[in-house]
């Protein structure tokens, strides 16, 4: 057995294809890692700029109602391996008691040139996707077919060795050869990553990279087995080579791009959208009614929502909605720097009113979220998930999905940020309640003491730990492994049955 493996290994190692594979892989991975690191550093700088900017903008606001807390999603360092949704989805979101933030309310901080998105973006997993599969097939196509033709297979089989052992030996040795360039190139790119000052990887990150490597090996093995299957089935090197290349082109290039066009589209969920939006509108109409009712029965009758405060500053209020995103909210902003003499007696009433309004708005926003969340889920997420399942019918799609999950750049990973943002909103609201911000004079005026933003809880987003990533990635990795097992069994059966 060991002799067989050694023989195969030497056979593979001394070939031109091995040298070419290693060289090309190193070249592509190292060159792209350089570019990707620069790109990541730029995005990180842009993120830091935005954080500082938002801090400053907040500090400048003298009333609580005018202040807008914004939180920013930092770029994921593992997006260098698989960029996933990291660049595509919104990276700044407004935290306000008026609305529960979601992915669809996020914006992009805009210092980058969005037109550059026209050019396809690139990551290390994409290189592996294309190149590893190609190499695996190139190593596999003549594994049996070549030996049939040269007659060495007959020679080997005259020895008292089981066919299973021959198959295993071939598989092991080729995989060893293929893993070498994969590991060397990954090692180099990790070394490059650690030299960059902007990127700090913790132990969890290394485990995640380990997960990516594991998935890559499984992916590699799938394509090697596909090649082996073709080689065992066709018995001629030229046919095997041709078929391998065709299947490679189909699986890597054609299928992922074509499948979504071919499958029938689900009906557009307009009815669902309208009904959900109507419910949301109702919530806010009730809110508005209660607000007006409060004003009418208030102990200070005859005033508008802002108590006709006249002074230096601005005020504004409106109900606004967006049926596409199912967004609806009541926005009232007051930003006064000073008042006239007549206004002072109104203050206690105004303060009480804003206290009432704050609690009502939070309640309405929370109720809106209960309707909005499942609706958004059904309109956007479920359709996209169905599309993803179609893509996973090919090993390429499985590999992409699994590595995204490991890197945390999949949809779930990005949505974790918005989950954290919602929790942060709750802590901001609690802080507001605890300090009686809604009832305070600083809610609408900065004349007697400005809004104090320093006590506000700080937002920090930690990516989920490795367990979560593993939980999300394991199903796809398992599917890849299962494909491996099935292919191996099929090849074994074919190989056993063949006459030499």
């Amino acid at each position, binding site marked *: 057995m060991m002799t067989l493996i050694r023989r195969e290994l030497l056979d593979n190692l001394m070939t*031109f*294809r091995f040298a*070419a594979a290693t060289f*090309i892989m190193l070249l*592509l991975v190292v*060159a*792209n890692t350089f*570019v990707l690191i*620069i*790109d990541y550093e*730029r995005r990180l*700088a*842009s993120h830091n700029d935005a954080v500082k900017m938002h801090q400053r903008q907040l500090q400048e606001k003298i009333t609580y109602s005018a202040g807008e807390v914004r939180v920013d999603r930092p770029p994921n360092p593992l997006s260098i391996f698989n960029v996933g*949704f990291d660049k*595509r*989805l*919104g990276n700044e979101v407004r935290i306000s008691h008026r609305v529960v933030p979601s*992915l*669809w309310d*996020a*914006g*992009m901080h*805009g*210092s980058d*040139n*969005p*037109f*550059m*998105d*026209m*050019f*396809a*973006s*690139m990551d290390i997993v994409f*290189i592996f996707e*294309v*190149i590893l599969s*190609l190499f695996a097939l*190139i190593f596999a196509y003549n594994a049996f077919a070549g030996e049939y033709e040269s007659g060495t297979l007959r020679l080997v089989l005259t020895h008292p060795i089981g066919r299973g052992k021959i198959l295993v030996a071939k598989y092991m040795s080729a995989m060893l050869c293929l893993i070498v360039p994969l590991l060397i190139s990954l090692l180099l790119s990790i070394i490059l990553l650690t030299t960059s000052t902007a990127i700090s990887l913790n132990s969890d990150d290394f485990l995640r990279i380990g997960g990516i490597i594991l998935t890559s090996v499984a992916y590699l093995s799938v394509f090697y087995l596909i090649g082996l299957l073709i080689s065992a089935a066709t018995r001629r*090197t*030229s*046919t095997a080579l*041709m078929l391998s*290349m*065709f299947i490679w*082109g189909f699986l890597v290039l*054609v299928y*992922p*791009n*074509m499948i*979504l*066009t*071919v499958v029938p589209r689900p009906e557009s969920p307009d009815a669902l959208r309208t009904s959900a939006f109507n419910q949301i509108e109702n919530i806010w109409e009730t809110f508005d009614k209660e607000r007006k009712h409060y004003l009418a029965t208030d102990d200070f009758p005859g005033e508008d929502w802002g108590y006709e405060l006249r002074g230096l500053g601005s005020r504004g209020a409106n109900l606004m909605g967006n049926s596409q*995103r199912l967004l609806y909210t009541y926005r009232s902003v007051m930003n006064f720097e000073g008042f006239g003499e007549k206004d002072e007696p109104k203050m206690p009433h105004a303060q009480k009113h804003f206290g009432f309004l704050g609690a009502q708005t939070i309640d309405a926003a929370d109720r809106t979220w209960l309707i909005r969340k499942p609706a958004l889920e059904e309109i*956007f*997420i479920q359709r*996209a998930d169905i*599309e*993803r399942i179609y*893509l996973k019918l090919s090993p390429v799609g499985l590999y992409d999905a699994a590595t995204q999950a490991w890197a945390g750049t999949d949809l779930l990973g990005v949505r974790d940020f918005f989950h954290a943002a919602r929790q942060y909103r709750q802590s901001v609201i609690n802080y507001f309640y605890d300090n009686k911000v809604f009832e305070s004079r600083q809610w609408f005026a900065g004349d007697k003491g400005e809004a104090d933003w320093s006590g506000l809880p700080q937002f920090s987003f930690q990516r989920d730990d490795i367990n979560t990533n593993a939980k999300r990635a394991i199903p796809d990795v398992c599917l890849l492994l299962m494909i491996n097992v099935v292919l191996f069994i099929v090849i074994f059966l074919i190989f056993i049955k063949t006459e030499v």
Partner: protein
Amino acid sequence: MWHITKREIYDNLNSLRFALTTVLLLALMVTNAVKHLREHPKRVQRYQDAVTESSDRLTAHADGSLYKLAQYGPGNFYKKPSPLHFCANGGESILPDTITVREPPVFATDAENNVILQGVWSLSYPDANLQNKNVGPNVSQVDWAFIIGYILSLIALWFTFDAFSGEREQGTLRLMLANSIPRHTVLIGKFLGALFSISIPFALAVLVNLLLISTANTVHLTAEAWGRLGIIFCLALLYTSLFVALGLLVSARVQQSAVSLMILLLTWVTFVVFMPSTLASIASSFSPATSFDEFWKQRNPVKEDLWDKYDEWLWSSKLDDKTLRGKSEFYTENAERDERWHEERSKYRSSQVYRARAITGISPATLLQHLIEGFAGTGFERHLQFVENTQRYARQLREFVADTDRADPESLHILGVREGTSKKPISPESVPRFEDTLNLSRDFNTAAMELLLLTLFVLVLLSGAYLAFVRVEV
């Protein structure tokens, strides 16, 4: 020579790869046609609705008075969808298809919310569509550019990798060269043979695609569109011959066909798949994006000097010539500044994109992509054309307003101010209308450089193949 070509074609026609190629190309082209037929009518409908709405707005403004037209301007501008959208999608999902006309800004109101200072309209160029709502998987479109750029080039290599090395392995090459045929004839024969045998399934697939598209009564192709399609077909052949030449070159130099295929595939992967995106990333890191702070400063430009300059007249309610003129100048200058800022930013961004395009031009796949986009009337070039068209129209409309005002003897000829402009309604028919046009000769000019480069690639590779083959020892 024709003998060799014929032999090659017959050889290929019977092979497995020919059958597989035909099936693959047909499947892709049919997918492409079906998708186009499903989506294009909707696109056209959306465009027409938008244009009608915008035209109605212009009519309403013109019906009001010349002043209203001068103040509110036309409706929004929409990019006309290209009938050849199926040839190249051209990043249409990222490029904006609208240029909005900004409502006149309100500078000041009095206590009763009455407007006292209101400017005039200006053009506002929207950013690229940031698709931060699209949570679906990211896949490229199956358009002609994809089919030709990726699939057809791969097929070309697939047909030629064993052209010489395979014959050498079988020994037929020696046999052939033993005859009194010059080597360049053999080479050209092989070249043409491979090119023809690829063209047959490709032409078939294209025919089926166009048949599907042209027989459907929802999509109309004009004579000009057919001309453009012809050009795109020729481009596809040119591009294919590039890869055929590459295949022959490598095949002549290398002894084994397996090694030849491997070298070819690695070259292909590097140039076609990786280079476009890697080079674009490098190009974008050349010119750093403006920092967030700067961006905000630019976006909220300090207009105080403008306020100071016209302070004297802005707050006076007098109706004398000087005051009105001062206000009018303030409004126009303000609108001009807004537009200029937008224009400069979009110019900066375009120059970034242009640089990236120039650098990625090393890859023939990108060259082809740009060429097809150019002739299909989609993509970035077309976007710039649309922007230019709108700018031209905006100038035209402003001139028209000035001219019409001059014809009214009652007007004071001070544009942008209610008291200074003609208040007569004007017939909507006389107002110039915006029409988004595509220009073939212009496309030719912009494409000439890229076309030349692509031809150069082909010639270099062909002569390389010739030199390699001439020196080959059989």
